[in-house]
């Protein structure tokens, strides 16, 4: 019956079907060839969509350009290209805007997005908890204590900050946040060397966060209202506070953290089954735990110091990349979280500036507004059984 039905349809539908099949097998072949050399082309990746990494890469490129092109001053795209390629723009102010403001901001957003996405993935895998995020270990609490001490505690410097003046205040803030974050992470690392189970580490991290949060609340309670405003501004998060001179420092931390995370893909994959199984697969749990905490520390402390406690990206991006790539394998997820994190951060940066308008929204408002519906959509699609 079906054979009879197939024959007359030689033209039209079945030809189209043939072509679709050929195209599919061609795509499948090239895909396999493309990925085999980095080790993600095998049968163990069935159901995954590694090609979406390429799509994310393209999206990242577009968003980088968009971030450079959009802003409160409208600069023609060809002028921006000229400036980027080292040429002279029609107005000197344009060169200034692009190189001194937009470029550092764009780079900061991309780096911060990568750092938060990857550290979120590390935390979710290590704690085997979909609600884990980069700050569960208490980094942001440590950083906020540093900032709170500076803003609320010291008279003269706090005053300078309030006036919104200058570099010295910003730098001090960054240093304070960085010191707080680094101190916290050192403490957590010391604990990580000693504890046996991830749950203990998680609870210690959370408790530490509450403890420090209480200290901050105490400082806030006795602080002057204007100072509180300055502190709150810091908690909103921002990609614009990093100067070209500071950028290499942030970049160095993020690149180091990402490289360390890349070296951990195998232990991370083993940890998908839980710590006991990971150990039985020959993974040195202690080394893996220290590596994961250290990578998270490098990534998150630097970002929090320079950009404030940016919420949401760290928890949402891992889910987003799992949903997009259709895989739990970290050889896909790590680059995926890296690219998706940068994309989400760059989107948030554009929207926060509200192009064509002088209003700037708090970054943390944007990340959650933008991200929450996307993550819900991805999770619901997944729940419907789409691998």
């Amino acid at each position: 019956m079906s054979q009879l039905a197939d024959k007359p349809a030689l033209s039209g539908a079945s030809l189209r079907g043939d072509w679709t099949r050929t195209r599919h097998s061609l795509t499948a072949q090239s895909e396999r060839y493309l990925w085999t050399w980095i080790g993600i082309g095998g049968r163990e990746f069935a159901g995954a969509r590694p090609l979406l990494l390429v799509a994310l890469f393209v999206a990242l490129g577009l968003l980088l350009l968009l971030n450079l092109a959009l802003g409160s001053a409208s600069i023609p795209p060809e002028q921006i290209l000229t400036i980027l390629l080292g040429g002279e723009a029609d107005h000197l102010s344009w060169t200034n805007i692009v190189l001194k403001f937009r470029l550092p901001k764009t780079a900061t957003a991309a780096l911060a997005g990568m750092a938060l996405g990857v550290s979120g993935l590390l935390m979710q895998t290590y704690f085997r908890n979909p609600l884990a995020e980069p700050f569960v270990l208490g980094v942001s609490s440590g950083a906020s204590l540093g900032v709170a001490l500076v803003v609320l505690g010291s008279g003269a410097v706090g005053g300078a900050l309030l006036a919104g003046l200058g570099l010295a205040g910003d730098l001090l803030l960054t240093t304070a946040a960085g010191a707080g974050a680094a101190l916290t992470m050192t403490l957590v690392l010391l604990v990580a060397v000693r504890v046996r189970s991830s749950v203990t580490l998680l609870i210690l991290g959370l408790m530490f966060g509450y403890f420090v949060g209480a200290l901050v609340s105490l400082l806030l309670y006795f602080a002057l209202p204007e100072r509180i405003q300055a502190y709150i501004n810091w908690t909103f998060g921002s990609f614009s506070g990093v100067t070209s001179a500071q950028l290499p420092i942030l970049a160095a931390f993020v690149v180091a953290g990402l490289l360390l995370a890349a070296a951990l893909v195998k232990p991370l994959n083993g940890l998908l089954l839980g710590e006991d199984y990971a150990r039985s697969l020959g993974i040195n749990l202690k080394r893996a735990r220290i590596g994961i905490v250290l990578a998270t520390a490098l990534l998150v402390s630097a970002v929090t110091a320079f950009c404030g406690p940016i919420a949401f990206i760290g928890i949402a991006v891992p889910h987003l990349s799992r949903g997009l790539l259709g895989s739990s394998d970290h050889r896909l997820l790590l680059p995926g979280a890296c690219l998706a994190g940068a994309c989400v951060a760059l989107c948030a940066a554009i929207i926060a500036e509200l192009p064509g308008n002088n209003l700037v929204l708090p970054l943390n408002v944007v990340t959650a507004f933008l991200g929450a519906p996307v993550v819900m959509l991805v999770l619901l699609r997944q729940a419907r059984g789409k691998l």
Partner: protein
Amino acid sequence: MTPPLETRALAIGYRRRGKSDLRLGHGLELRLQRGKLVGLLGPNGIGKSTLLRTLAGVRKPLAGQVLISGSDIANLKPGELARHLSMVLTALPPPMLMTGYGLVALGRHPHTDWLGRMTPEDHSKVAAALRAVKGEDLAEQALAELSDGQRQKLLIARALAQESQIMLLDEPTAYLDLPRRIETMSLLKRLAHSQQRAILVSTHDLDLALRSCDRLWLMSPAGITVGAPEDLVLDGRLSETFRADGVRFDQRRGGFFLDPPGGRAIHVAGDSEETAWMRRAVRRAGFALNNEPGKIVVMRAQNGREPIWKLRINESVTKHQTIEAVLNRLEGQLE
């Protein structure tokens, strides 16, 4: 020949701060052999999991040594140990975006490079492991779509793909239904015999262990007794180990039963399928069985063309359609 795993004067348990060690076993001289399925049995809390975790190198022994192919487990690197010993645990892994094949492929970890890249040889080992558990049809399925039994099967395949001589399984059948439990145990038995693996499986399923294991390690407060299942039953050590109030191990039937509460014994006459089930029902209802015809006798009879149950208590005989009716009458009479 050195056995794949043996222990020397092993003491297991927990170190407690400010108190003496909690010893769950000491002076253990155990030995796992190739090609044998060994069942680890013992009442709850006796330390089966602790023993397994000590044998796997997860816990440090309180004293003594665990030797893997003759070398002390304490001196083996994690990666090296993983090539000798694999584990299957009670808990099933959390949901992951992965196919069955991907899960089994994780078992190749000890053999792959730092990225976990699979060579054609690795792929053939994974395929072989899937074949061994008869799970080829699960390879392309998403883990989220599989049942507990299917996932446990894949985890066993994962342990096989690890190509370790020794396999330790901690209650792998705990979450499975009876047919799946039987299937899993016979699978383990087949693997031990056909692939010459040394397999140790802890279980609470005494009946199944008696039927499928080549040897038993019977764990009791006094230590670990080792032997063929039948020997341990016949010399009474099995029933001794599991003795509890009101529960009795029936040597003849090879299982645990509630002690009948001192009631009168009932004789069920006949040797058919129906009478066998009547005996079960009588036991289940808490009566003792009497091998000789006594004051209470149940028998199968014909009422015209229709088969019925005849119940004689002392001299009064009643007729019943169903087993339930007989039990009701018995309970009513013997209150």
